[in-house]
Structures are given as structure tokens and as C-alpha cells.
């Protein structure tokens, strides 16, 4: 009874492999996961009684988390519209025109993204984090927003930026190294990209608290990844949003990877369940189904606007490319995983649906192809024309009200630069 439990425990510090319902479910987002129970019951028989209680019973059977991962889906991978008792009503009003619009959004976003990737290869950008595969999660959620809502992105929300009307070329500045965030967040209610993982969840919460103070009914969306879910800041954002009843939508794009780490390094259970521990609802949606994402985001926003506090939406999707252009995913994941996900491509799915339902014709696709080409060209041209910042820009904007220290250093810098001018002037003579 009190035997050493070495084998059971020996493997402990390596992440509980079997405990990865998110990952197993990843193989089939449509399937209702069932793995959640496995780890919790695996070694139930091996109880070791407490020393003071020689007659203690076997380890108790605490209930495994009650919920199976429910994945809201409205379009199958093949583009077939399937009914959903809860969410159909949230997209009843969507017209064929709007559907084509989403398709266009996704195609242009992907095109922009591909262009950026190739500009990185050509040395025009230092780095690029591709959103390939996550178009539906971003367009579906981005299109559910009102202009007065405010978005706090990570560094990968190019599709959301598109929905917010941010000029795509502005997104490239920081990756080209000409600035650390090139757009005015207030002009489109789309905050700057945040690189330190999870930080923006708190900014979103604070902004949402401010909306509450103002008595407005706008909402805030905090985008974050599966990896980010582990950061303390995200947890604190859950707490603050819940306690203050703040209108925050936590939108987690679970693309199943945080660089090389699969989701089971971050959680034992599907991430949408995290919210319940904080007392607000969480929903998992097929992140490759733009219609389902739209429906779920709309429903969540309605919930939030009605004064009930935050919600968590987990968009279950897949990072089809590398983490960034600096990454080499062949080192840590099998190619067949990616291939399996290609079958669930968000764009192909909507295309199939449009075609099957006769909602778009060849002319539409052809003209979109042209628009897409033109956009690629204009992005290329814009980036190549993007000027390097003036060297004195490093002393700009460190402070809003200025600082004597920066003034002193700027003056020294100018003096130092001027000394070269003298030299070249001298040499010129």
C-alpha cells in the first residue's frame, strides 16, 4: 500500500502527455474531445494513504472537469452549412454580399500576409509573423465589432487590423525596423501590436473599466494566444475584468503552438474552460469557420454589452506556417499535422460554400484575384518606398513633456555627428 510510486511520478516533470485534450482534439476539431478524463483517472488505483491514517481509503474520485470541449461550427470543413441551435440566430441576417465580403477579407489578408513573408525573404523586413491559417478567426471576430469598440492585438492580428481599416502597410513598419509601432491607435480603435506576451490583456481590461466609468456600451477585445494563456498578466486580467464587470472580450486564438510548444505545455484542459474558474463564460469555436466565429463573437459581445461582464472565446485554429520567418517548425512538428489542417483551410471552406450555394460566380473570383494582385503590388511598392527614419528620431517621443537628460544627450549626439561633418568638410577641401 505504501510502496514507492517511482514510475508514476518519475515522468511527472515532463508535461503530462496524456493530459492534452486540446492537442488530441486538435487532430479533429469537429470531434468532441474525450481525452480530458484520461489523465485524471489513469492512476486512480495507486493511492497512498496519509501516514497518520493507516486505514485511509483509496484516493478519492474527484470529478474530472465536467465539460467536454464543445466546438461551435456552422460550416464544415467541406463548406456545408450545418445548423446550430444556439448560434444560427446570430448570423441569420448575413447576406450573400456579406459572405462574399468575408471571403474577400480573408483572401486579401492572406495575400497581404504572403507578400509580407516574401518581402522579409527579400530583406525588406527583418521579421514577419504570418497569420496563415488564422484568417477566419480574425475576420470573423473583427467583423463582429463596432467602430467604437477597441481592440488590443498581439503581433499577429493582421486580419483584425484589416477589419479595423488600418492601412496594411503601416503594420510593416515595425517589422522593417523603422519604428516600434507605426499607426495611431486612436484613429481606428486598434491598439499597437504588443510583443511582451499577455501584457495587453490588462490594458484591454483597464480600457474596458474606463468604458464602464463612462457609462458607454462599447466593448474591448483582447486578442491573445494559447501560449499567452499561461502568463500571470492574462490571469490578472481575468480577475480584474470579472470583479469590475468590465466589458472585455478575451479572444484566444488557440493555434495550438507557442513557437515550438504545443498547447499541452500550457494547459491540461481546453482553454475556453479557464473562464469558468473566474466566474464568466467561455466558448470554443471552430476558428477556421468564419461564420461560426462571427456568430460566437457577436453573441459574446451582446452578452458583454448587456452589462454582464467579460467573456472568453477560444477560437480553435492552427498556425499553418512557421511562428515567424525566423522559425523552423520542421524541428518540432510533423508535416502531416499541417497537411491535415490544410483540409480545413478557412478560405477553401468558404469558397466551397459560396460555390455550392451558388453565392459567387467566376467573375467574382476573377476580379478578387485581380484586386489581390494589385494589393500585392501596392504593398511591395509602399514598403520599398518607406523611408528610413531620421537618426534624430531616436530622441523623439521618449517623453511627452520632454526631459533635460534626453535634451543633453541629443545635444551631445548632434555635436558628435557634426564632428564628422567637419571632417568630411575638411576632407572635401
Amino acid at each position, binding site marked *: 500500500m505504501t510502496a514507492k510510486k517511482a514510475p508514476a511520478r518519475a515522468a511527472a516533470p515532463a508535461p503530462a502527455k496524456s493530459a492534452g485534450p486540446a492537442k488530441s482534439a486538435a487532430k479533429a476539431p469537429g470531434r468532441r474531445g474525450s481525452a480530458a478524463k484520461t489523465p485524471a483517472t489513469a492512476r486512480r488505483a495507486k493511492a497512498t494513504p496519509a501516514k497518520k491514517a493507516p486505514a485511509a481509503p483509496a484516493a478519492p474520485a474527484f470529478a474530472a472537469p465536467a465539460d467536454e470541449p464543445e466546438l461551435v461550427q456552422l460550416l464544415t470543413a467541406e463548406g456545408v452549412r450545418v445548423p446550430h441551435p444556439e448560434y444560427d440566430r446570430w448570423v441569420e441576417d448575413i447576406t450573400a454580399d456579406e459572405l462574399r465580403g468575408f471571403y474577400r477579407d480573408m483572401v486579401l489578408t492572406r495575400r497581404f500576409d504572403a507578400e509580407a513573408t516574401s518581402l522579409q525573404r527579400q530583406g525588406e523586413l527583418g521579421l514577419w509573423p504570418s497569420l496563415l491559417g488564422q484568417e477566419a478567426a480574425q475576420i470573423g471576430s473583427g467583423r463582429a465589432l463596432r467602430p467604437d469598440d477597441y481592440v488590443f492585438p498581439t503581433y499577429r492580428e493582421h486580419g483584425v487590423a484589416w477589419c479595423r481599416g488600418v492601412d496594411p502597410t503601416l503594420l510593416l513598419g515595425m517589422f522593417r525596423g523603422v519604428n516600434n509601432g507605426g499607426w495611431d491607435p486612436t484613429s481606428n480603435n486598434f491598439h*499597437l501590436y504588443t510583443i511582451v506576451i499577455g501584457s495587453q490583456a*490588462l490594458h484591454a*481590461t483597464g480600457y474596458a473599466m474606463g468604458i464602464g466609468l463612462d457609462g458607454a456600451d462599447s466593448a474591448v477585445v483582447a486578442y491573445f494566444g494559447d501560449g499567452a494563456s499561461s502568463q500571470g498578466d492574462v490571469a490578472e486580467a481575468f480577475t480584474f475584468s470579472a470583479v469590475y464587470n468590465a466589458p472585455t472580450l478575451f479572444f484566444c486564438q488557440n493555434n495550438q503552438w507557442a513557437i515550438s510548444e504545443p498547447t499541452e505545455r500550457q494547459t491540461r484542459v481546453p482553454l475556453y474552460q479557464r473562464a469558468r474558474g473566474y466566474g464568466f463564460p467561455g466558448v470554443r469555436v471552430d476558428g477556421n469557420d468564419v461564420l461560426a466565429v462571427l456568430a460566437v463573437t457577436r453573441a459574446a459581445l451582446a452578452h458583454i454589452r448587456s452589462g454582464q461582464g467579460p467573456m472568453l472565446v477560444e477560437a480553435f485554429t492552427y498556425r499553418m506556417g512557421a511562428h515567424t520567418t525566423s522559425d523552423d517548425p520542421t524541428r518540432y512538428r510533423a508535416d502531416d499535422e499541417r497537411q491535415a489542417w490544410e483540409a480545413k483551410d478557412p478560405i477553401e471552406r468558404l469558397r466551397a460554400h459560396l460555390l455550392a450555394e451558388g453565392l459567387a460566380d467566376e467573375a467574382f473570383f476573377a476580379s478578387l484575384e485581380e484586386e489581390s494582385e494589385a494589393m500585392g503590388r501596392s504593398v511591395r511598392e509602399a514598403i520599398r518606398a518607406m523611408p528610413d527614419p531620421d537618426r534624430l528620431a531616436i530622441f*523623439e*517621443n521618449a517623453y511627452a513633456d520632454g526631459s533635460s537628460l534626453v535634451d543633453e544627450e541629443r545635444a551631445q549626439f548632434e555635436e558628435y555627428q557634426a564632428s564628422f561633418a567637419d571632417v568630411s568638410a575638411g576632407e572635401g577641401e
Partner: protein
Amino acid sequence: MAAEKLALAKAITESLRTAMENDPKVIVMGEDVGKLGGVFRVTDGLQKDFGERRVIDTPLAESGIVGTAIGLALRGYRPVVEIQFDGFVFPAYDQIVTQLAKMHARALGKIKLPVVVRIPYGGGIGAVEHHSESPEALFAHVAGLKVVSPSNASDAYWMMQQAIQSDDPVIFFEPKRRYWDRAEVEREAIPGPLHKARVVREGTDVSLVAYGPMVKTCLEAAEAAAAEGKSVEVVDLRSMSPIDFDTVQATTEKTGRLVVVHEAPVFLGTGAEIAARVTERSFYHLEAPVLRVGGYHVPYPPARLEDEYLPGLDRVLDAVDRSLAY
């Protein structure tokens, strides 16, 4: 309103009250700032007068406090957040360093973050671990932040007014062991700039530069030195970022000798920067190297040893003597 005598803590309370009256966007947040009025009672009465929407008791999470204050500032508010004690600011350090300090530059100036982070700091009150530290150098080294500390009630009042009006984030270090010291606060006075140092005692033989809690100690040391026939000038630095080097340079060149005093550890404390920069500026004026008096490179000791650790009158006078011995 004429000048009135206020304790330093109370002067901050009054300053917060004035700011909240003048600007509905000013809000106060932190742990226990509401009904309790903060563990030092600095926010005493504010929630009663301005309500729970403007004086917000927060969850126990400093990163959350600063992070949400940033979001509130983005929404147009001017949050004044309280960190309960110096040693508890570190959970918020990431938000302060990577977000609060850098977001204005990141946005190319398009957004501003007028957030004040109040931190009661320093030792001398016989407290347990983490309640007596002086971490100001860890903030002053970080570009994008401004770092100040008043030494008396009048400055406390006015510097808080200016910190709240500042469009830059300000880390506002409050010398907790001087919270109960009273001084005249002239509410109508037009104060000097926030980041300007002030000569608080004239002298000719040696200059002392200090801020926050050590200004009083230095004034006492100057008094004692005067009894011994030494004329000591004392400068209240007031701002640790940016530092008013012009005033420090002037006093140094006047006396030819400079001693910097702070509670924080000497090693890489603000005194290091002052010594380095003043030596560069006034190399030919120095009769002695700039000397530094401060804490040691050890964790802040238990209360019964803090008097050994903290710079007191005697250690300041010893440094004055050493400087004069050159």
C-alpha cells in the same frame, strides 16, 4: 487660502483631493485605498467624497493595477495608483518597464500615459522585510519614466499636483518615515518646475545632495557641522529622473566638494550617476572625489539592524570630514 501646516502624508491627501476636484478624469486605485484609506491613510476620506468609481479598491495584484491603469489612461483617465510598499512594486515592474515607460514612444507620440505610481519607500520605521526598500534607481535607469521624491509636505503637495498634470508616467516615491512630519503648505504658491533641484541650505565648504527622507538627515548634519565650524550646503534633488545636473554642478563648483546621500544601496544607486556626471562636468573644480553615503550591497536588514544600515547623521558627518580631508 493661506498657508497651513500639514503632515507630509496629509499634504498628499490634499493634493489628490484638489486634483480630483479639478479634473474628473483623475482617479485613484490600489489595494485598500478605499474605506481603509490606504495603510498609511494617504487616501483617507477620498472614497467617501468621490465614490467607489473614482477611488477604486483593486484586487491584490500589482501588475494588474498598473496594467489596468495603462488601459484607463488610454481611455482618457489620469490614474494615480498606489503600491502599498516599496517591496511590492516588483510584480508590476514588467508593466512599468515594458509598457508604461515605452508606449508613448512606441506610438510615435500619438498616445500619452499620464499615470502616477505612488510608492511609499525607505526605511526607518522598524518594519518587516520588503517594507523599507529604496528601489528608485531601478526606475530612474529606465527611459520613459520620470522619478521624483518630495522631502517635505509643501513639495509633496505641489509635486503631486505636477505629477498628475504631467503627460509622462511619474514614479512618485513618498518618504514614508517622513509622512508624519509637518510643514507649511502654501496652496496658492506657484511652484517651480517638477524636475528642478533646490538649494535648501547655503554653505561654502562642502555640498550635500539628497532627496526624500535623507534631506532632513542632511539638514541636521549641516546644522551639526556648523556647530563645528563647517559650512555645509544642502541640495534637495527632488527628481531622480531627470536629474537637475545644473544645480548639482553649481553647488559642486561653489564648494569644490560633493557628498551624495541616499538610503538605497550605494552600488549603482543614483549617487553613482551623480558622481560620474558631476565629475565629468566639473573635473577641474573638484577638491575631492564625490563621496557617497548610502545602503550596503546586502538585502535590507531586519529592523533591529536598520540603524546600522541607514545613513544617519554620523555617517553623513563622517563623509563630510573625509571630503574635507582631501
